[in-house]
């Protein structure tokens, strides 16, 4: 029987209360939301916080809304709720693609979007999805609120810019006319990614005028592929250029060999999945916006 080590438990009643508890208990305290990453780590003693601050009662953080042309996803939104959100799927189908392959339906009932991002697992799916669409993280701290681009959110595996006395409260994505998609290879249903790629794009005429590419489990700094994006921008959205973008993305990421496969295989997946995500996003763009361009 695996049981966490002893800890003090506190239930936060508001964001301010959570922040005051973080200050009170110091660096040995941890926020728990869904707990589906943290509690298994506590059982294995990979994490041993002295105090747990439970934010499950902060229902204000569990809302998905559109405000001032921005999709706002509260940090406490459960994966199942993001998957079920019509407004999120309408503007960013990449989130539905990614949520369909985050763990399994029962885990998605409990795990949270904010928890996944703060866990910063290199194989986590939403990190690449938010990186592809250039989302932002809203972080509350004792000194007030700050907003950090997701592409600057991660400082390393399992590390983010969220400080010891700060709380991630919301993810934001500015809504613009775009199409997006996420493609993942996993060993079996519900597993972490062997590799995955997300893409968002906007086309004017035949030209790509906006493109974002996210990569998961591939050692891409901050889960995105800037060199491939730069190559694609301001050129036609054609298969030949998508193929080259895939090769560039594969060249610039840094996958490591592990039980999910050798590095060469993962680099191959980086190329193939980048192309598939771009093509799927393009199909959606034409379906939604420009039927005549087929």
């Amino acid at each position, binding site marked *: 029987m695996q049981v966490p080590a002893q*800890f003090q438990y506190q239930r936060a009643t508001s964001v301010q209360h959570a922040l005051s508890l973080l200050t009170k208990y110091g660096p040995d305290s941890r926020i728990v939301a869904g707990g*589906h990453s943290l509690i*298994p780590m506590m059982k294995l003693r990979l994490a041993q916080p002295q105090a747990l601050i439970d934010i499950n009662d902060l229902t204000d953080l569990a809302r998905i809304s559109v405000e001032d042309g921005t999709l706002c996803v509260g940090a406490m939104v459960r994966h*199942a709720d993001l998957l079920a959100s019509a407004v999120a799927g309408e503007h960013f189908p990449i989130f539905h693609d990614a949520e369909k392959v985050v763990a399994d339906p029962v885990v998605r009932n409990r795990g949270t979007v904010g928890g996944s991002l703060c866990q910063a697992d290199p194989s986590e799916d939403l990190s690449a999805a938010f990186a592809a669409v250039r989302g932002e993280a809203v972080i509350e701290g004792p000194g007030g609120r700050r907003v950090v681009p997701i592409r600057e959110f991660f400082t390393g595996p399992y590390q983010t810019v969220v400080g010891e006395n700060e709380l991630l409260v919301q993810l934001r994505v500015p809504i613009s006319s775009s199409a997006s998609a996420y493609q993942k290879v996993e060993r079996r*249903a519900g597993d972490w990614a062997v590799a995955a790629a997300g893409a968002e794009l906007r086309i004017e005429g035949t030209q790509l005028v906006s493109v974002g590419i996210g990569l998961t489990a591939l050692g891409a700094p901050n889960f995105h592929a800037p060199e491939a994006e730069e190559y694609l921008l301001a050129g036609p959205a054609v298969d030949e250029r998508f193929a080259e973008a895939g090769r560039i993305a594969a060249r610039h990421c840094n996958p490591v060999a592990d039980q999910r496969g050798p590095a060469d295989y993962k680099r191959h997946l980086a190329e193939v999945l980048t192309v598939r995500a771009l093509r799927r996003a393009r199909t959606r763009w034409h379906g939604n916006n420009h039927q005549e361009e087929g």
Partner: protein
Amino acid sequence: MEITVTVNGRAYTRDIEPRLLLVHFLRDELGMTGTHWGCDTSNCGACVVWLDETPVKSCTVLAVMADGHRVRTVEGLAGADGLDPVQQGFTECHGLQCGFWTPGMMLTARWLIDKNPDPSEADIREAISGQLCRCTGYDNIVKSIRWAAEHDTAHEAAPAGTTVDSKEVSA
């Protein structure tokens, strides 16, 4: 710390350590051993119970997190009129196999049919994709859940209310 959890419609108050997991609270504190405990890593799904309206893996939920909330276990699946159609389906179609993962499977199946009264085979396989059957009996489990959907009347009945039996509330 003291918590009160409503399990299958009855409130139970216990004084527990914060590190006690919900699965062990149900089994060891309340003696409800219908909830099984398997892999301990949120993988196998033997420990699935409902927390409020949704199935969760109770080996990854602290009992203190259920304080003030409702839990439904396999002991709460049968109604006053007899077995739930899901339980009947597992009987009719030999979905039980060894029985170890059956309670969690049935609770997820009940949730699926409540949401989707006519699930396809793909819907069923997706719903239970986070739960293992080590007898490799998935085909019969899928048939059982499909049988339950075809014979289900639960979505037409009024939802069961919450009752508090003072005899069951212990310090």
